[in-house]
């Protein structure tokens, strides 16, 4: 993908290159600071995961320039929240900036509100052809991702304020992974937005993010799911930190592909065809999303198997969640075969991507609702 780094006409200037190095320097010094100050509390895996993040985030930021600003903003907001907390959880209700801006729940609520507004703006832009509305949608989506990411990071810190033995990475229950799902889907979308230079697909992608936010709000308001609950022993593992995010790159990408699939199907019937990008562009985005999703989903499933081998004594035991992960994997494996080797294009593949989302959704939420098994991180 390396030649996509610079879109035609965007010659990397001196300023951008300087920012690249500044970005790397910030990442390096952040990691170094963490190692020096907190290294004694970290085991080998924590250290390894921290160090791996430096090249990983560097690659993402260098390859996709807007990510640098995003990472910096999120880091500053999270650090500000930590500074405001002063190690006392009660300050979440006493400090204005925490209570109404950057404590974890507030930040996630901001994300939720912004997602809805951004969705509206994208649709306004698409239907009325208003460039300004689309720009607004795009900007709001960026802010929503920044707030949501800040929310998760601050939640991570808050969990440790509840008690050092309670603290955990907030991607461990259904509420937290839903936030993660929204963030990853939006980030992937924003990447394709810059990559393809069109904001016209936002209206469709943001619909699925809005649906996820709707679920999230219901889950928090009605079930109190937003409360930090300590981890049961089976989930206390460093594998969580890699297995879950990889999985959600998969879920997010598949959801995005399905929404683009819907756009492609509508365009194929002449609905919004004049406003949406060309069909072959939509198909290309759909392919790219499924490809990246499939690659990460494979990694996630493999990591899950390695974790299962450690926690349950076997890398595969046909637990419903595992089995449905396999079904999702088989589905997209078949999809990719049909496109790459079978040469299939058009509405058929779009339909397939949409149906794929149904399968993915079942694997993601349905299994927890209808089937019993070992993946006990969330029930409805």
């Amino acid at each position, binding site marked *: 993908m390396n030649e996509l780094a610079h879109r*035609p006409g965007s010659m990397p200037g001196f300023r951008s290159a300087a920012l690249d190095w500044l970005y790397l320097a910030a990442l390096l010094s952040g990691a170094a600071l963490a190692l020096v100050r907190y290294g004694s509390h970290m085991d080998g895996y924590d250290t390894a995961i921290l160090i791996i993040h430096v090249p990983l985030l560097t690659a993402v930021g260098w390859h996709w320039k807007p990510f640098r600003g995003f990472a910096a903003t999120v880091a500053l907001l999270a650090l500000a929240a930590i500074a405001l907390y002063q190690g006392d959880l009660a300050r979440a209700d006493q400090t204005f900036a925490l209570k109404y801006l950057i404590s974890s729940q507030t930040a996630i609520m901001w994300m939720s509100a912004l997602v809805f507004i951004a969705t509206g703006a994208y649709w306004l832009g698409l239907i009325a052809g208003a460039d300004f509305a689309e720009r607004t949608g795009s900007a709001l989506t960026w802010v929503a991702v920044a707030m949501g990411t800040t929310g998760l990071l601050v*939640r991570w810190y808050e*969990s440790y*304020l509840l008690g050092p033995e309670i603290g955990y990475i907030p991607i461990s229950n259904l509420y937290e992974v839903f936030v993660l799902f929204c963030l990853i889907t939006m980030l992937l979308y924003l990447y394709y937005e810059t990559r393809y230079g069109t904001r016209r697909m936002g209206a469709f992608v943001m619909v699925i993010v809005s649906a996820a936010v709707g679920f999230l709000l219901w889950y928090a308001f009605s079930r109190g799911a937003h409360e*930090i609950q300590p981890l049961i022993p089976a989930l206390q593992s460093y594998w969580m930190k890699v297995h879950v995010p990889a999985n959600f790159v998969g879920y997010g990408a598949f959801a995005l592909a399905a929404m683009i699939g819907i756009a492609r199907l509508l365009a194929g019937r002449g609905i919004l065809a004049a406003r949406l990008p060309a069909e072959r562009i939509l198909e290309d985005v759909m392919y790219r999303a499924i490809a990246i999703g499939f690659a990460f989903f494979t990694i996630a499933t493999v990591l899950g198997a*390695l974790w299962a081998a450690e926690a349950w*004594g076997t890398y595969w035991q046909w637990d419903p969640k595992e089995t449905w992960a396999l079904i999702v994997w088989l589905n997209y494996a078949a999809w990719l075969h049909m496109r790459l080797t079978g040469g299939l294009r058009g509405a058929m593949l779009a339909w397939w991507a949409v149906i794929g989302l149904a399968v993915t959704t079942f694997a993601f939420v349905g299994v927890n609702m209808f089937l019993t098994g070992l993946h006990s991180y969330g029930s409805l």
Partner: protein
Amino acid sequence: MQRGTARDLFELLSSMRFAISLLTALGIASIIGTVVQQNEPFNAYLNQFGPFWFPVFETLGLYSVYSAPWFLVILAFLVLSTSLCIVRQTAPMLREMRSFRERAREVSLRQFAHRSEFSCSLHADDALARIEDYARANGFAARTDRRPDAVLVAARQGSLSRSGYFLAHGAIVLICVGGLLDGDLPLRAQLAFGAKSSTSAGQLIADIPESSRLPESNWSFRGNVFVPEGRSNRYAVLRLDDGILLQTLPFSIALEKFHIEHYDNGSPSRFASDLTITDVETGQSFSHTLEVNRPLFHHGIAIYQSGFEDGGSSLRLRAHSLLPGHPARQQDIAGAIGDVLPLSDKGYAHTLELTEFRAFTVEDVVPDPDQEARQGSVLTQVQRQLGSGAGAPADKAMRNLGPSFVFRLRDEAGQAREFHNYMMPVERDGAWVVLSGVRDSAAEEFAYLRLPLDEDGRLETWFSLHGLVFDPARHEQIASRFAERSLPGADEATRTRLTATARHVLDLFAERGYETVARFIETTVPSDERERALDLFLKILNGLVWEAWAIQHEQSGREAPILDEARARYLSNATTALSDSLLYGAPLYLQLLDFTQRQATVLQVTRSPGKAVVYAGFLLLILGIFAMLYIRERRLFVLLKNNGDVLVALSSNRRTVDVDEHFGRHVDALRLILDPAFAPDTPAMPR
């Protein structure tokens, strides 16, 4: 002809269409296994599906889909199809990877979707050198073909993309084969060919026949080891269908202590076993604390903390008789969890099966969050969401109800009821009661008998009341005392009438409690007077129980009680408990006096020879997928004609949109270096 059929078969099996069909079949088969719970005891299936479907589903292998023959056949076909596909593709792919296609003719280059022409103003040798440099600088390997009228530079990059195909498809084969080695196929093979057979669960280890024991040398197994505290075990139990096999281990595992730690909210935070492992052959031993997510590897066997159970906690119990006419008899019993004890008295001969003991009984007492959350306006609800993710301090969702135990009482006919008795009292509606749950089968919820504590904090008063109220020989005495107290100055006839009524109420109540009283009122009193009658009857009943209480006080040589609010509440609770005790379904109540807990750890032990193969497959799979999806094979052809014309063509194995862009940049860049006069619209910097 024969050759043709074999060829057709090969074509079919190695075709992508066939592979896709297999993927679909595998997906659907897998769904079945998630819908039907796998590897449950057969009795559970019999209950679930009934006697007609149970054997049908058993034949279809739906209770262990993933080791059913037909499922393995699908897997085998997948392995075969993938292998044949690799075989079929190897030669052409290798050829493709090696070839530069430098013999490509101008005519065929003109067929390319991506092609462009311009003219070159440089000297031919200079131009060729520049093209070759350009190709090299941009990550292409190039080969030059000189022709009479032209020179062709055939360049390619990303040939490794094709190796991804071999890696990924080879990985599938490796994973399937490794998985088969670790599944229960080896065990089933031993059963089929090795004169081994599974036996029924629930036997003593010593009773298990040699034919159901597997030797230490067994190279693939997965089973559970059960070790109570203070004991040791060197046998793992392997479950297969509805039976078990015993796997002998090369070491014995002794458990010193099992630890459970909890968070403040009552959910568990840590499970750990302090183990001592002793090699049977050498006698060498070592200690190890095993935790969840931290397996131990020894002699090629992995040991995991898998669960815990009761390891035979010893209980001291007191049986209080609930039989009418056997006032307040007590009997002390000592037993351990897992024991089956005879329990008989005048009128019954039951067996007591002690099944479970819990030192903590954590109960969810959180108020219904749905209701709580719905209170207040939208604004206050949002307000409540703001702030940290920590729950409000009042939301301590769990409460520890203290020690409790579960037992079954089996009557002479073999019918069993299950009971769940708590040791400590709990506060219910302002009064302290001791809970005892009862149910007829595991499928039901427990119904609770609430025995009230008396003023001394004991149950004894209630049992005395029970003895008096349900002893027919006492009814006359209680009734006449009640009449005397209620109508102190009345004449003989009125008192006799009240005594008779009271006696009748007591007889009715002694039959089936409130139920018979209510039925009597329903059948004999006209509907508009029923409420008044019920009220009267309940007053009489309360008075009667109060009288029984007074008698009990007299008997124990204490002063007669004086009615106050606390006693009135006790009276009401005691009466309700008396009524409920008639539906309790046991001739006695078992009170837990004291216990010594002994826990047991459940460890999973596995030997999985296929693990390394599967892991290798995982690695290849990931490498292969990334290679296939993200290494792009590109072929760039630059035909430099002697007359100065240049033809540029590009081909790619992925028809993605960025190929256009990529091609455009190559053309611009090549034109820039071959034709200095050319100025593109935008500066391009392909890498």
